[in-house]
């Protein structure tokens, strides 16, 4: 029994919540969950199938793997291909296509690419291989930033000079602001990412809620968590309220985790960031501070920018904003599959396209799902 996990998969509670949602709803609503992990759960348990007609769930850009800039992936590939250099990465990044290749193929061609579960393991490799340059591909949202920061901070403190980080961090609220402010936004209620908020707290989401008059519920990742969050959003919408509520209170506090945020602040600073499939979003990323430049792979490795040819068929951007479903894409499951992805959301295990492909392909309906 995994405590604080299994109880939130209880099917009777799930059914009760589904019934409650059905009881309260009187009008159609469009809800968005931001986080890839939440999308994964919804698809895995077929929760969209359990929703009453009229309640639509769309998926946001909550997959840092999907939104890592193409140029950064290309940089990682170039670094991995260099002799005497080890590129260390989380597993998620290995199959994401760059302009011409991906890390998996790079490994096949002789590049030293290694998978780790924690940035501390990357440090271990650096200590063990003093003669080689070890570059850690630090991708993630605010949830992962503290861990990645800690690795760089420790590297500096111990003087592990062969260690550096290729950072690609994105921040959720600025992207949400862009999405919700967009002319074509249809989202009426938002499930905020529970593990991001565990670190950041949810004060920023209060601003979002007020500015756009939209209810927001900070949600967990198990089916009961998501169903409860959906029920709470529906209740708010039906009542005409637009507040921030915390469903995932076993992990999330209003103020978040201050120690975690502190180390992020010491090591990183906010910067403008390019989101793959969306474009540049102001103040939506993190880069290493001046004091840590010696550990910044973006500075250490001078690489020529590569340009990418755009495939007009891939509609990643629209999917990442919840304006289209993967099943609306003409290439979905035909020219675009996990083995031959046209875009990042099909590659990443958390990408909406991959989730749909793996779990829901058999119920795919052709054609547009709205308007």
């Amino acid at each position, binding site marked *: 029994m995994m405590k604080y996990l299994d109880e939130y998969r*209880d099917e009777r509670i799930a*059914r009760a919540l589904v019934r409650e949602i059905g009881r309260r709803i*009187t009008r159609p609503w469009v809800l968005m969950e931001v986080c890839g992990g939440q999308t994964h759960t919804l698809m895995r348990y077929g929760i969209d199938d359990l929703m*009453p007609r009229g309640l639509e769930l769309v998926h946001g850009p909550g997959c840092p793997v999907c939104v890592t800039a193409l140029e950064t992936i290309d940089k990682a590939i170039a670094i991995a291909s260099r002799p005497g250099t080890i590129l260390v990465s989380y597993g998620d990044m290995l199959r994401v296509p760059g302009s011409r290749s991906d890390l998996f193929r790079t490994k096949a061609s002789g590049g030293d690419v290694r998978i780790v579960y924690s*940035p501390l393991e990357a440090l271990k490799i650096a200590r063990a291989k003093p003669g080689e340059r070890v570059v850690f591909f630090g991708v993630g949202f605010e949830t992962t930033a503290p861990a990645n920061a800690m690795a760089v901070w420790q590297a500096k403190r111990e003087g592990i000079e062969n260690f550096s980080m290729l950072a690609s961090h994105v921040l959720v609220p600025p992207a949400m602001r862009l999405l919700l402010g967009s002319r074509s936004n249809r989202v009426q209620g938002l499930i905020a*990412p529970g593990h991001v908020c565990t*670190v950041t707290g949810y004060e920023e989401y209060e601003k979002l809620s007020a500015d756009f008059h939209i209810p927001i519920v900070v949600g967990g990742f198990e089916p009961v968590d998501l169903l409860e969050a959906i029920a709470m959003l529906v209740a708010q919408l039906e009542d005409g309220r637009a507040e921030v509520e915390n469903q995932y209170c*076993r*992990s999330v506090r209003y103020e978040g985790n201050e120690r975690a945020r502190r180390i992020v602040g010491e090591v990183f600073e906010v910067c403008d960031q390019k989101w793959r499939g969306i474009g540049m979003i102001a103040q939506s990323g993190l880069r290493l501070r001046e004091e840590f430049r010696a550990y910044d792979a973006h500075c250490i490795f001078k690489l020529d920018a590569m340009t990418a040819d755009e495939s007009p068929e891939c509609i990643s951007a629209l999917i990442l904003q919840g304006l289209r479903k993967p099943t609306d894409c003409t290439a979905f499951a035909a020219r675009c599959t996990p083995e031959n992805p046209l875009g990042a959301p099909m590659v990443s295990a958390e990408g909406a396209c991959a989730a749909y492909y793996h779990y829901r392909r058999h119920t795919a309906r052709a054609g547009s799902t709205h308007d």
Partner: protein
Amino acid sequence: MCLAVPGQILDATERDHVRYGRVNFGGVVREVCLDFVPEALVGDYVVVHVGFAISRVDAAEASRTYELLKEMGLLEGEFASEPSESEASPLETEAGRSENDGDEIPRRISR
């Protein structure tokens, strides 16, 4: 993003002024950095992401809210004759109305 899993702290040590601990995730034990959760003690549950604890599980809060959910679930078992795959049309306000209104629905949802 964010695969984070809850586990129980078995023991804690300090290395180079950084706190680590062995955490038990349903029978799997791994070393975790506890530096972000100084308030978490041996025996507490923490939520762990990429080898770092990012929060201490608020057992009291979890228990309180889960009790409400459990009630819902038990009642669902008693009153439901079949699994609810609610197809209530949004325009039918009485659709799917269950016998237990009001009190049994967790306060967070019902207001």
